[in-house]
Structures are given as structure tokens and as C-alpha cells.
């Protein structure tokens, strides 16, 4: 390590925040750009599975809540892109990397939302897992990222509660509604577990990220915490977690549970999830169809500036 790097690490170890204009190792910058960018992309792509049910929400109240949630996600995307921009990458570049497949988004959004209960399950499990990842990141070493996380976590936990409320309602509803709720849990349980990433023994790059406080906990720690939190919630509303091996382990003070099918995880990552092509296709189409709009905004601003300049110099 160079003296600069040693000093940098010392600052992090002391719990100081790193701010955009300050010196940082290239690896730190790159890792953060990737992580924050992918986090932002997840928010953006993550609009789609839920937007899929806005036009079909069953009541006006549910429609309004879902609209507000999807809007929040777009807002989170915006904060995160802004945080990434402070590291010297433009939003257009980030978008380009998403569209070219160079940067990923959370694989969970490559699963379809097939019934209304999925709006409950997504909020409860997906936002639940996201929060589990994000709460520790409020203490991450990079200032703008940390501040974005603080703001985002507040909203996400609201979303999680709303999702759980939908599930509760469904689980206490008609036979069909209960069936829908259980079906959603069955389909989304393992993909939610996958959100924490591969098992620690297969996870690369973790040590450096943890030293830099970009990653605060190991994948398996967070996954365990998620399971321990979620299982009782499922039981409370009479739903069954689809895992025959699920069992309370008194000794470790947590549940034993089955690993997700990691082959499926890598398949989805490789582009073969149920919705990879539809999701990325929808985003690329939105971007391309909207090119004329973005160009017009720029052109108008230029014209206006030119006119103001002309007036000023008359």
C-alpha cells in the first residue's frame, strides 16, 4: 500500500466519511461506481414488475399506494445515479452500461409478477431483503452513498410494511386470495434469498469491499437475518414458507433453511431468467423512443440561452 492508501484506510477505519472531491484509490472509486450504479439500475428496472399491476390494481386505494411506491423507486434511482455521478460517471454512461449488459441490476426483477399477491410479496420479501442489505450501508464509508441510503431505507421500510399489509389481507381473505398469497410466497421465497448473493464461500471481492466499508456484512449473515425475521411473519398470517428443511436451531439462535438453487441463480444472471429480455428490452425501448424528447429539451435550453445572450449583448 502507498502512504496515500494507508492514510485512506485509516480514515475509513476511524469511521470518517469520504467525500467526492477527496482522494480515493481507483479500486474504491470503481467498485463504488459499479455498486451504486447497479443499485440505481435495480431501482429503475424494479419499477417494471410492479408497474405491471398498476393498471389492474383492485381498488383505488391500492392503485394509489402502488403508484406512490413505484414513484419512490424512480426517486431512489435518481438519488443513486446522482451519488454515482459524484464519482465522475455521467447518468448517460450509467444507462449505456445497463443497456449494453455491462452493468447488472438485481436478478430478482427478472422474475414475473403474476398475480396481485405478488404486489404484497414483492413489498414484503423483496423490499424486506433490500432493507436488510441497505440498513448497514447507511454506515458505508462514502458520504453521498451513505446519505442516499438513509433516505432510501426510510421509504423502503414503509414499502415493506405496505407489502406485508397486502399479504395479510390476502391471507385473511377468500379461498382464492389465500391461494394467491401462498402461491406468491412459493414463487418468490427462493429468489428473495438469492438477493443476498452467493454463499460466502463462493463470493469473490468481498474482503476488500468490507475493508473499505462498501460492504458491511457477509451474504450469509444477511440471508440468515432475513430468514429469521421473515419466517415468523409468514407464520403470523398463516402462510407456509416453501422449505421442508426449515427448522428452528436453538443452538445458533436462528433457523436452518435450504439453500436456493444456485444453478438457477447463475442462469438468471447469465440472461436466462424468465423476464431478462423483457425487462431490459422495455428499458432500452423507453430510452430509444424517448431520444427525441431528451434532444428537444437540450435544443430548447440552447435556444433559450442563445436568446438571452443575444438580449444581453444588444
Amino acid at each position, binding site marked *: 500500500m502507498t502512504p496515500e492508501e494507508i492514510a485512506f484506510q485509516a480514515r475509513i477505519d476511524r469511521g470518517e466519511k469520504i467525500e467526492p472531491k477527496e482522494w480515493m484509490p481507483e479500486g474504491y472509486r470503481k467498485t463504488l461506481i459499479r455498486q451504486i450504479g447497479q443499485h440505481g439500475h435495480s431501482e429503475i428496472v424494479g419499477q417494471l414488475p410492479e408497474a405491471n399491476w398498476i*393498471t389492474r390494481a*383492485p381498488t383505488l386505494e*391500492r392503485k394509489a399506494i402502488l*403508484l406512490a411506491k*413505484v*414513484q419512490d423507486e424512480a426517486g431512489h434511482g*435518481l438519488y443513486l445515479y446522482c451519488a454515482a455521478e459524484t464519482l465522475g460517471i455521467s447518468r448517460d454512461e450509467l444507462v449505456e452500461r445497463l443497456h449494453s449488459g455491462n452493468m447488472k441490476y438485481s436478478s430478482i426483477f427478472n422474475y414475473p409478477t403474476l398475480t396481485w399477491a405478488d404486489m404484497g410479496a414483492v413489498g414484503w420479501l423483496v423490499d424486506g431483503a433490500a432493507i436488510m442489505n441497505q440498513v448497514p450501508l447507511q454506515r458505508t464509508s462514502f458520504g453521498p452513498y451513505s446519505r442516499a441510503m438513509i433516505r432510501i431505507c426510510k421509504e423502503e421500510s414503509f414499502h415493506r410494511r405496505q407489502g406485508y399489509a397486502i399479504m395479510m389481507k390476502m391471507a385473511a*381473505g377468500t379461498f382464492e386470495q389465500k391461494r394467491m398469497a401462498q402461491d406468491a410466497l412459493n414463487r418468490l421465497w427462493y429468489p428473495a434469498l438469492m438477493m443476498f448473493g452467493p454463499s460466502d464461500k463462493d463470493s469473490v471481492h468481498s474482503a476488500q469491499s468490507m475493508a473499505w466499508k462498501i460492504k458491511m456484512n457477509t451474504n450469509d449473515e444477511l440471508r440468515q437475518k432475513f430468514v429469521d425475521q421473515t419466517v415468523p411473519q409468514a407464520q403470523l398470517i398463516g402462510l407456509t414458507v416453501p422449505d421442508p428443511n426449515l427448522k428452528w436451531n436453538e443452538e445458533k439462535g436462528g433457523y436452518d433453511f435450504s439453500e436456493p438453487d444456485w444453478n438457477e441463480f447463475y442462469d438468471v444472471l447469465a440472461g436466462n431468467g424468465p423476464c431478462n429480455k423483457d425487462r431490459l428490452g422495455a428499458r432500452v425501448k423507453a430510452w430509444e423512443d*424517448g431520444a427525441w424528447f431528451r434532444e428537444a429539451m437540450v435544443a*430548447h435550453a440552447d435556444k433559450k440561452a442563445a436568446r438571452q445572450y443575444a438580449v444581453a449583448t444588444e
Partner: protein
Amino acid sequence: RDAFFEFLLRIGDTTLILGHRDSEWCGHSPVLEEDIALANMALDLIGQTQLWLGLAAEVEGKGRTADDLAYLRDAWDFRNLLLVERPNGDFGHTLMRHFLFDIYHLALLQALATSSDRRVAEIAAKVGREVAYHVERTSNLIVRLGDGTDESHRRMQVALDALWPYVGEMFIADEKDEAVAAVGIAPNSASLRAAWEKTVRDVLAEATLTVPESKFAHKGGKRGIHTEHLGYILADMQFLQRAYPGASW
């Protein structure tokens, strides 16, 4: 009372359907800020729908709720303006439709704020601020897109030409409009036209767009005679309520 109920459906159904159209953009807008803005307008409109259809249900007095009205009527019982059920087209088309409606919407709400019916006046006062913001936003975008690139100018002119035949319906009063106007519940629709024209023409002029000369006006939405598009909107919107009758969500 029947005319009052109809009047409330006309406005409540219009905000519902426009909110629906707006929401179709979620996740598909040209730029992130627009995703947020359009979702926000949709959210305002759905909130307004709850108020207007809620009052409609109350006025009707048959024990129906706002949700019953939104989810359990077929197209012929919907009273929204045809303008708002037109397909979204490109993003400029959606904004042009919004703009043409927003200017009317704000004028209507301002007039309704002095309604002889206290409940109407309260709702109008409450939601007027939201709509004033819609007006500000869409007017601003119309100018920027009309006076942007050649391509954006062309698209906005196409949108304006296509939508213009649907603006007349906002200002044509039938006997039900006249009945509510007579008792001071609502303004006379025709009375809103002059101010609307002025504002719209000013913005369009700044946007370097040409107002079509045709005075032709499609109508029917206010009497339940819609375009073929509404049926498809409702098939999606109402699916769950229809497929699982009596369930609580």
C-alpha cells in the same frame, strides 16, 4: 339529484381514466424525472377520483362506494371525456393531451371552488393546488417541445392536430350540465371556453405550434358513448374485481 350525480361521474371518471393513461407510462418514460412526474400526476388524479366518485356515491344514495363505481360499471356507464381515453401515443402526444385538459381542469376547479354545494367547493379547493402544478408543468413542457428540435416540433404539431377535435366536448353543455349550472353547483361549461382558448393559444404560440382551424368536436363520452379504447382500459382495470367478486383487497 340525477344531474348532480352525472356531473360528479363526468369529472370523477375523467380523472380516473386520465390517471390510468398516465400510469401506463410508469417505467417507460423518456427520462427518469418524467417517470416521477407522470406517476405523480397519476397519483393526484387517482386521489381526486376517490373524492369525486366518493361524493357521487354519496349523492346517489344507493349504498355504492367509489370503488363500486370505478370497478363495477361497464363502459356505457362511464361519463369521462373522450379526450382522456385516447391512446397515449408518443410521450409528446400524452403531454399534449394532458395540457389541453389541464387548462380546462384548473378553470373548472376554480369555478367549482365557489360551488353552491359545500362538499364540491371543498374538494375543488383542496385539489386545485395539485392541478395548478400540472398546468405549470405541462405548459412548460409544451413550450420546450414545440420550440425544441424540428422533430419535436413536428411530433407536437401532429399531436395537437390529432387531439384538437376532442377539446370541444369539454365546453358543450347538455341538459344535465345546465341543470347543475342552474342551481350554482357548477359553472356553465361554455363559459370556460374563452379563458381556456386564450391560455391555450398563448402557450401554443410560444411553443411555435399552429392551432388547427377546424371547429369540429367529437362528443359522446359525457353520455356514455365512448371510443373503442375505453373497453380495453376497463377490461384490465376491472379484472380482479370482476374475477373475484366480493373479495376485499
